[in-house]
């Protein structure tokens, strides 16, 4: 595993960009682009990342960047990939599609599923801040149960859609879950994906101070707490082989029960007022997924 001091010094994301204070995406993006060493073209739909990228005629990201319509990310990326192949530049440039959780789990899933079925040559990275944060914190298919959003005022009733598992069902060469709170984990997974061909799917858990309701100084801590309690699980599935990675692998190896979800939930105002029943349901959902991950880690599949 790469150490933080080993990451390339050069930054493709300029300081002073338009991301909110404490934005987890800003942290993760730096690691992603370092791993691509500037030899990539991004495509980005309407999302927080569009805002981070800046407004014409200036931009904060020093990489070719193609904006696209909300549902079209994976298809535009497939088109860029085909266009680069047709013009003899596919070896030189990696195509990185990068969308939020709404743009991936909801409106973008048709195009993503199509690209995955065709195994188009691109990296698709979903940064999952667990709601439509750019438009003012409306619930998405990736919002966890219990979370209050501007369209679930009393807390969302449904558990989130498991997009990495949906992508696994397409049997693409690489599926990984990472967290912006662990930049070296992000870096390593993007660096590995970059060496592969076909559709590579990465899912980055991304703390959001304004949408989750916590002090912007605590983004990394919140992201780490989510992994400690199993709300987010770091793993990768490489050509069908499953393994826990990073902190989640260490937690599995330690063999102790995970932290209860309570501290992580209590640190976010979006979970304020959860009753005991809802809290227990979230814990049961987390336990079920963690047991399943441990079993898969053991089995290697």
């Amino acid at each position, binding site marked *: 595993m790469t150490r933080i001091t080993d990451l390339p010094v050069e930054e493709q994301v300029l300081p002073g960009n338009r991301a909110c204070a404490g934005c987890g995406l800003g942290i993760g993006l730096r690691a992603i682009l370092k791993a691509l060493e*500037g*030899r*990539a*073209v991004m*495509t980005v739909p309407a999302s927080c990342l*569009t*805002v981070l*990228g*800046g*407004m*014409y*005629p*200036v*931009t904060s*990201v*020093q*990489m*070719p*960047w*193609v*904006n*696209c*319509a909300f*549902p*079209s990310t*994976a*298809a*535009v*990326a*497939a*088109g*860029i*990939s*085909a*266009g*680069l*192949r*047709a*013009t003899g*530049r596919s070896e030189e*440039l990696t195509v990185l599609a990068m969308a939020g959780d709404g743009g991936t789990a909801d409106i973008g899933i*048709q*195009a993503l*599923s*199509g690209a995955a*079925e*065709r195994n*188009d040559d691109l990296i698709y990275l979903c940064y999952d801040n667990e709601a439509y944060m750019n438009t003012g914190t409306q619930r998405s298919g990736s919002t966890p149960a219990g979370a209050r959003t501007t369209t679930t005022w009393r807390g969302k009733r449904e558990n989130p859609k498991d997009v990495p598992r949906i992508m696994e069902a397409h049997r693409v060469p690489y599926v990984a879950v990472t967290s912006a709170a662990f930049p070296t984990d992000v870096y390593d997974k993007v660096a590995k994906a970059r060496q592969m061909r076909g559709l590579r799917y990465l899912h980055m858990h991304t703390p959001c101070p304004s949408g989750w309701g916590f002090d912007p100084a605590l983004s990394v801590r919140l992201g780490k707490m989510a992994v400690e309690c199993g709300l987010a699980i770091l793993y990768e599935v490489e050509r069908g082989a499953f393994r826990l990675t990073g902190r989640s692998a260490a937690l599995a190896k330690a063999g102790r029960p995970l932290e209860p979800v309570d501290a992580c939930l209590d640190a976010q105002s979006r979970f304020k007022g959860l009753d005991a029943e809802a809290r227990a349901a979230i814990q049961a959902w987390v336990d079920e997924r963690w047991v399943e991950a441990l079993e898969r880690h053991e089995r290697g599949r």
Partner: protein
Amino acid sequence: MTVRIITGNEAAAWGARLARVQVVAAYPITPQSPVVETLSAWVESGEMPAELIAVESEHSAMSVCIGAATAGARAFTATSSNGLAYMTEQIWWAAGARLPLVMCVANRSLAAPWNVLNDQQDSMSVRDAGWVQLYCRDNQEVLDTVVQGYRIAERLNVPVMVCYDGFLLSHTAMPVEVPDAAAVDAFLPPRPQPLQIVDPADPRNIGPVVMADPRRDADGVLRGAYLELRAAHHEALLEALEAVPEVGEAWARATGRPGCGLVAEHRLDDAEIALVAAGSLVTQSTLVADLLREEGLPVGVLGIRCCRPFPAAAVRERLRGVRAALVLDKALSYGYAGPIATDLRAALYGTPDAPAVYGAVCGLGGRDVTPEALAEAARAALADARAGAVERPLAWIGRMAREEAR
């Protein structure tokens, strides 16, 4: 040059092949499907060296074209009807991003209710999106217009929609001169550099958020905002009024076939009434005009090949001296009038001695437009024109009078 007996869809596929299209996005919809079926067969057999992506929807078909064209490739797709409606978001995107795509539309009615047959409601419904829209009279024009479309698109950095009537042309075989590859290569060189290049050495944010007011760039230059970009797009489309005929003439020089321009005319010089139409109705109207001429009726035809940009100056000039124009629209802006009739009225407004413009709707959902019905409509229009009628209610050609029980 080889003469082949081919359908409009095959002519479209030949146009894409001769244009050396590099990326094809393929998704089926009746009556366009044979275009992408033919291209798939050629790509699989190696006859056509292109990347073909069999997408999962029309929205993604246009998205793939947008991505491929942004990366610098020559991209193509084809659609019809609800497929065009489904990709409408991306129709606007491709135009606003100033991408030189060519897309064929085998014209078909829009649901509901379901109907797979011809009218022009689909492409007419996106005429404001900022594409050049060209309508073809016959299969020869389909092939010619696809190839010419790339030269127009790549000169102006605007996309070009090549429209031809579903079934009437898409599935009807007729002789088509297929030019030699060398002649087409001389006419259409490889795609020039895109307006904005994807290059890590000079990274650009392509199609970003643009605010309402001009802002300064990193060098302190005040750059235009959304309104200025849209104005530039409009001006580029207006340039097509020159580019379309010029490219038609260059095609005539390259292939030895008469070129096509903004409009087509037939026996207008001494006409009292002009039939105005787009697509295969132009061919049909020409035959009807000849029949009526035999009866001694002074009827001519004005075919609108280029609907966007609308050739206002050309139609004003061609209709000078005509008493009335009978516009045969295969589409309708529900609650108002047919789209070509509306545009023609606007183009003629304020012109001294402008002809009256009579609107007629025909052929919706594949309703047969018979020569007899067209002739009857023309006779009635001529009578009204001679009686001095300036306005008439919308006429429905071929509409049954009322439903009757057996």
